[in-house]
């Protein structure tokens, strides 16, 4: 690795020193310890007039032990020195002097020191373990929360970015990044308050190192090949993300020190999340493909019927026309039938083509200034033959020019009109109202048919969906409304259907558009 890389150990050591600074807590314990010893001295000299030094020594030892067990070593040491001095001065003959007559009493003094040393050391170690355990528990809790979050990830890049943000937040990191190799480039998902730029070359080097295989790092007790790099004075740790043993990217973290083991676990969770996100993406693609297949099946089923009937009629009518004995009016009627059925087939193909264009997203809009009344007239013209059994009522108010795609809009209205003609009984009235509002062009088509069954309302614009009750009565293909919606969507417009207050169905189309002021 380059010169800026060094081992993690230094970072870890400097962090643990932080915890060894004296605190008010320690001073309080010291006061308690020394105070305890002094109180014992007071009690023994004033009231008990203890002559037996062993009793006093045992009492002091007890106090030193308690202090050592609950405090740091230096607190215990100071306490034991205080105990030794007081024992010497007040209880060891010659009392009232610092002189030690009997060499045996030195033993007592050293016993205090030894006890405080051993006890505080043991206690210190236990405390350290407890602290470590607590830290581990916290990290495990964070990891657990994180993995729960990973299970809820959705597909795509957003999920990885939000995962990076969530890790930075949960682990309280100044900077955290998930970097994934994309050919020669690195895709980065960065999070945290600190803004630094990772060097691409160093990322590639670290990644190449991770690909070299697993090596055991004895000091960090990890196999995963952690690296550090210094960026803008910050020591950034790089941890390979692996699926199995195969590295798929790198994770970079700086700020609060995190145990190497925790970083490994974190890397494993992140790797799983990335893998999951990409699997979900694949599944989504498969789902889209499956829906495409479903659509084709539905299309074939629908076309089956809609093609066969006109084809049969055309074949039979054409053969009828070949019959020389056919009466002239019957001949006319048969050729009429052929024309109508051919038109029906033509419309079907138009619909299929239009639907394919909508699916392929190749519906081009061509905005022009046009009068709403023209659009409605054009729409009626497209389905004139289908509307001949119905009374059409048109009201356009105001007929202000709007800038829309007249062709797409008229075609959408025509599909809605065709739908109305299919479902409403013959000789009933179909009302078309068009107006220009702040939203754009609003057209509504209302029929006096049976209306829409509530169960059908949410599915009206689904392709090949045909109303459950009306299914048998009409010759629709289930494509019209879906095409109308597609044509409107191409112009950012919308359409919805509802049951009109006085009965019958009402469809409203809105095409966003700018309008010319009436005055201009």
């Amino acid at each position, binding site marked *: 690795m380059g010169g800026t890389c060094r081992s993690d150990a230094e970072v870890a050591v400097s962090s643990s020193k932080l915890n060894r600074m004296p605190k008010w807590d320690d001073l309080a314990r010291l006061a308690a310890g020394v105070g305890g010893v002094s109180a014992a001295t007071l009690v023994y000299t004033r009231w008990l007039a203890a002559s037996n030094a062993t009793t006093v020594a045992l009492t002091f030892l007890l106090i030193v032990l308690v202090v050592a067990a609950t405090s740091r070593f230096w607190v215990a040491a100071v306490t034991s020195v205080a105990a030794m001095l007081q024992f010497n001065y007040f209880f060891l003959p010659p009392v009232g002097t610092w002189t030690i007559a009997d060499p045996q009493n030195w033993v007592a003094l050293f016993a205090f020191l030894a006890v405080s040393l051993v006890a505080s050391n043991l206690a210190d170690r236990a405390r350290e373990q407890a602290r470590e355990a607590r830290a581990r528990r916290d990290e495990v809790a964070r990891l657990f929360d994180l993995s729960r979050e990973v299970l809820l990830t959705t597909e795509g890049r957003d999920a990885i970015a939000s995962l990076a943000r969530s890790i930075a937040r949960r682990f309280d990191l100044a900077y955290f990044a998930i970097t994934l190799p994309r050919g020669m480039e690195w895709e980065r998902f960065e999070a945290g308050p600190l803004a630094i730029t990772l060097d691409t070359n160093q990322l590639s080097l670290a990644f190449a190192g991770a690909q070299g295989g697993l090596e055991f790092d004895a000091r960090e007790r990890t196999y995963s090949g952690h690296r550090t790099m210094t960026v803008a004075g910050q020591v950034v740790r790089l941890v390979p993300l692996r699926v199995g043993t195969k590295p798929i990217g790198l994770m970079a973290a700086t700020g609060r020190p995190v145990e190497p083991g925790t970083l490994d676990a974190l890397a494993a969770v992140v790797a799983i999340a990335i893998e999951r996100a990409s699997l979900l993406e694949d599944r989504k693609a498969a789902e889209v493909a499956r829906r495409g297949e479903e659509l084709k099946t539905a299309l074939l089923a629908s076309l*089956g*019927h809609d093609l066969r*009937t006109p084809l*049969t*009629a055309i074949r*039979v009518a054409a*053969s009828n026309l070949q*019959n020389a004995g056919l009466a002239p009016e019957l001949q006319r009627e048969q050729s009429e039938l052929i024309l109508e059925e051919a038109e029906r087939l033509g419309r079907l193909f138009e619909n299929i083509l239009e639907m394919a264009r909508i699916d392929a997203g190749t519906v081009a809009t061509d905005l022009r200034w046009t009068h709403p009344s023209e659009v409605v007239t054009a729409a009626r013209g497209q389905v004139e033959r289908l509307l001949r059994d119905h009374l059409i009522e048109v009201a356009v108010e105001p007929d202000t020019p709007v800038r829309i795609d007249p062709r797409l809009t008229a075609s959408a209205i025509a599909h809605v009109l065709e739908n109305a003609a299919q479902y409403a009984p013959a000789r009933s009235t179909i009302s078309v109202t068009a107006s220009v509002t702040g939203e754009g062009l609003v057209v509504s088509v209302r029929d006096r048919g049976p209306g829409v069954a509530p169960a059908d309302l949410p599915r009206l614009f689904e392709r090949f969906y045909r109303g459950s009750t009306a299914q048998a009565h009409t010759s629709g293909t289930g494509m019209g409304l879906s095409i109308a919606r597609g044509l409107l969507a191409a112009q950012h417009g919308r359409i919805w259907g509802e049951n009109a207050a006085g009965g019958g169905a009402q469809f409203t189309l809105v095409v966003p558009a700018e309008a010319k002021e009436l005055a201009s």
Partner: protein
Amino acid sequence: MSGTARILLVDDEAAIQRSLVPLLQTHGYDVEVAGTGQAALKAAADRPPDLIVLDLGLPDLDGTEVCRRLREDSKVPIIILSARDRETDKVRALDLGADDFVTKPFGPEELLARMRVALRRVAADSGEASGLLQAGDLTIDYDRRRVVRGGSEIRLTPKEFELLSLLAKNHDRVLTHRAILKAVWGPNAVNQPEHLWALVAQLRKKIEPDPTAPRYLLSEPWVGYRFATSPPTS
């Protein structure tokens, strides 16, 4: 045939009605049209037709249901109009007693040929005392269980004779695999068509002039078999 045959056309599609009615009329049939299953049942009860052309896709009743109800009290020939994606409905209708089917889109000749055969069968059934069937150079004597082709007797096993006589008694009708299996092998055999395939192959070797191009025992692929009294028109 005496007089004009009366045809009941049951189809809800206006285009089909408008093209078929002139077709049938110009071929000398009397046509009545029904657009729904209920109307069809009523018309068949009020003025029994000689033949019914029945579309399976009706707005009110399922076509197979119409077929079943018609068969409750009538033996009138029924020709089904069906689509290729309604294969199972077609087979059900045949099981329920329909005689034949035409698949949409069909040509006029196809339908007319099926109608002629069905009408002829009815006429033949009512005309003869039914102890004997004569078709081409084949003679089947039901009472004496004898089959003669071109003057020489053909020896058939009892099962072969049972199958042949079943098809011959229903000549010019399509019998579904299921119906044949049930009649010849019993209700437990309906899902074992391999019995039938094997027996048909044996029978064809014995009675057909050319077993590879059958003239009497015709297959209706995926549906069943029919015994044709007149050679198939290709």
